[in-house]
């Protein structure tokens, strides 16, 4: 059965559970027993292990952080939103967009922003899908940084990322998001550090009026 390796990968991927990513380290006695059984070579290894030169002979093997991947949970939810939206987009492509709002977003009053930047975010709805269109080509970022578009609540306690902004583009607002609950449109400078939360360095901000 499933002799084609690609088919096997496909079938197995569907069945992977979070348990399959969980690991338990063996008790220390296991290595001692291995070293005792294979004799000379491994005893030399054990000595190496104590002064941290184990990886010195072999090139260092970076042990992957045991932050186990969670696509079966969180990422899948994000992706399913995208899939659902794509289906809607396909079905309603011919629809003309309805303008929901045009919001001025500026650097005014933001301590981390260069002064005098102003642009406008356009929010439109097409076939039930809302999108924000934005041009940020006036904002400079460093080589290890990028801009990210957010919707934020009035308390600045909760936010939704709409994605990375390069020069400009159109960003879908997830169907679950009530714009009245997240009226602030925010563009932040994010370091390229893999940390998914807002950096706190906003460079553009505007508020959708009710």
């Amino acid at each position, binding site marked *: 059965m499933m002799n084609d390796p690609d088919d096997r990968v496909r079938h197995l991927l569907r069945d992977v559970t979070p348990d399959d990513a969980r690991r338990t380290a063996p008790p220390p006695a296991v290595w001692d027993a291995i070293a005792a*059984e294979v004799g000379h070579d491994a005893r030399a290894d054990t000595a190496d292990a104590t002064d941290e030169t184990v990886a010195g002979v072999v090139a260092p093997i970076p042990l992957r952080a045991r932050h186990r991947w969670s696509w079966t949970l969180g990422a899948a939810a994000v992706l399913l939103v995208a899939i659902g939206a794509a289906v809607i987009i396909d079905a309603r492509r011919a629809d003309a967009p309805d303008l929901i709002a045009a919001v001025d977003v500026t650097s005014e009053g933001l301590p981390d922003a260069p002064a005098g930047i102003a642009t406008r975010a356009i929010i439109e709805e097409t076939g039930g899908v809302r999108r924000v269109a934005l041009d940020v080509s006036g904002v400079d970022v460093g080589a290890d940084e990028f801009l990210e578009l957010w919707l934020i609540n009035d308390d600045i306690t909760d936010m939704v990322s709409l994605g990375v902004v390069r020069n400009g583009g159109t960003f879908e607002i997830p169907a679950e998001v009530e714009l009245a609950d997240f009226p602030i449109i925010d563009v932040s400078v994010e370091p390229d550090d893999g940390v998914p939360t807002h950096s706190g360095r906003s460079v553009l901000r505007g508020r959708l009026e009710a």
Partner: protein
Amino acid sequence: MSAALLTRPDWHNVPEEPLRRVSDQMTEPTTLDDAFARGGDSVLRAAYDEHGSFVYSLCRRTVGEDLAADITQEVFVAAWRQRASYDPARGSLGAWLTGITRHKIVDVLRREARHRNERLDSSNVLLDVSDPVEWVRQLGDRMLLADAMEALTERARAVIELAFVEDLTHEQIAASTGIPLGTVKSDVRRGLDRLRRHIDFDPPTGET
């Protein structure tokens, strides 16, 4: 507000180059894989540090905690003695070790089945599965894939999931994620190459 919405859509933000170098270790034989095949000081310990938890965890889930330590020991001793038969070009060291582990586990299950006068291929009380041999194989491969998926870039992982789990076409993935079609295709192809290296590895001979 679901927690998922508070994180970035992950395919947007992955710096392609630095991460690709990390995951290339999954396609091309790593230094450890090569060194293990040649043998030499320190490699058994390095292999144990990298794969010991995997082997032990697979044993725990199949034969239980009491036997897991013994089998883990047997696996690494057997692997060391047979290291000349490991060919890094054919698959990852992890996949090869999993093959050895699987055979050790099946041996244990067979012994236990004999004690209970049951056939292993009939319904097994311990495991409560109809085909324990295939069950162990699939469990090992799923654990290998879990590791291999983790080593992919977030974007490649998302694309692979959409292609293989959600069964979207490349065009649908490009349309729904905004990733260029050519990138989707190369992510799928390269991702599949990497994942395949972690399964479908013929077990070493003489281990059954």
